[in-house]
C-alpha cells in the first residue's frame, strides 16, 4: 500500500520549567496542585487574573525557597503591607531567584 501525505498539521505545546521533574510528572495527575499558581489557582501555563494572554506577557517568578508563582500575583501580594515581604507558602522572606531553583 502506498500512502501519499497530502497535508499535515504540526502541533506543539509549551510548558514553564517549574521544576516538576519527570518522576513527579508520573504522578502529576493525582497532585495537580503542583501545576497551579498558589495565589490565583490558575495553571502556570494560563495567566494571572489581570492578564489576557499567557506566556511571556505573564511570566512566572521563582523564589530561592523554590516556590513558584505568576509574577503578577506574587508582586501584588508583596505590595500589600500584610505580606511582610514573605513567601505565601513558607513565610520565609521572599528572595527572587534568577531562575528555577533545584529542589
Amino acid at each position, binding site marked *: 500500500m502506498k500512502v501519499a501525505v497530502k497535508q499535515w498539521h504540526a502541533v506543539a505545546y509549551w510548558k514553564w520549567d517549574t521544576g516538576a521533574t519527570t518522576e513527579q510528572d508520573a504522578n502529576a495527575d493525582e497532585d495537580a496542585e503542583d501545576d497551579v499558581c*498558589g*495565589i*490565583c*489557582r*490558575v495553571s502556570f501555563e494560563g495567566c*494571572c*487574573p*489581570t492578564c*489576557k*494572554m499567557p506566556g511571556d506577557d505573564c511570566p512566572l517568578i521563582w523564589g530561592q525557597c523554590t516556590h513558584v508563582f505568576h509574577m503578577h*500575583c506574587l508582586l*501584588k*501580594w508583596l505590595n*500589600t503591607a*500584610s*505580606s511582610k515581604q*514573605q513567601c*505565601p*507558602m513558607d*513565610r520565609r522572606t521572599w528572595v527572587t531567584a534568577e531562575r528555577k531553583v533545584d529542589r
Partner: protein
Amino acid sequence: MLKIWSMKKNEETAAKKKPKVSAAQIRLQKDLTELEEFKTMTTDFPDPADLLHFNLIITPDEGFYKGGKFLFSFNISTNYPHEPPKVKCMQKIYHPNVDTEGNVCLNILREDWKPVLNLNAILVGLQFLFLEPNAEDPLNKEAAEELRRDREAFAKNASLSMRGGTIRGQTYERVLATP
C-alpha cells in the same frame, strides 16, 4: 508567527468586550468547587449570583458547643485572595475567641492570612475554634479566663449561654440546633 500576533490582537479586543468578572470571583469560584464536604458545616448563599457574600452554619457534633447552631457571615473583598474574607459571628455567643459584637479571633483571618489559603482553611479553622477554644488569644477575656481556670465551669456556662442564659450580666442568644 505573524498569525499568532494577529490572533493575540483579536483576543485582546475580544477580551475588552467581555463583561468583567473580578479576579476575586474567579478565585472564589475555584475555592467553592474545591470546598470539602463537612458534616458539621453548610454554606448558604442568600443571593446565588453574589458569591462574595454568604453565610456559614456550624453545628458542632462534639465539644463544649455540641448541640449549638452558629451562624457566620462571610464578606469577601474584591482584593481576595490578597485580603482575607471578613468573617463575623451573627449571634451573641459566649466564646473566648468571639466577642459580643461577633468579631472572631482566628489567626488566619488576621495577621497570618496568606493568599495561598482558601475557604477550606478558614472553615476548618472556625470549626476548630468550637472544638478547642483558645484561651491564650482571647476576645472575650472573662470566658478565656474561666476556660483556663476551670474547664468544668466553662463547659456549664457555654451550655447555659447556648440556651439563652445570662452570664455575669451578659445575656446570650439562644443558639440551640433543636428548637
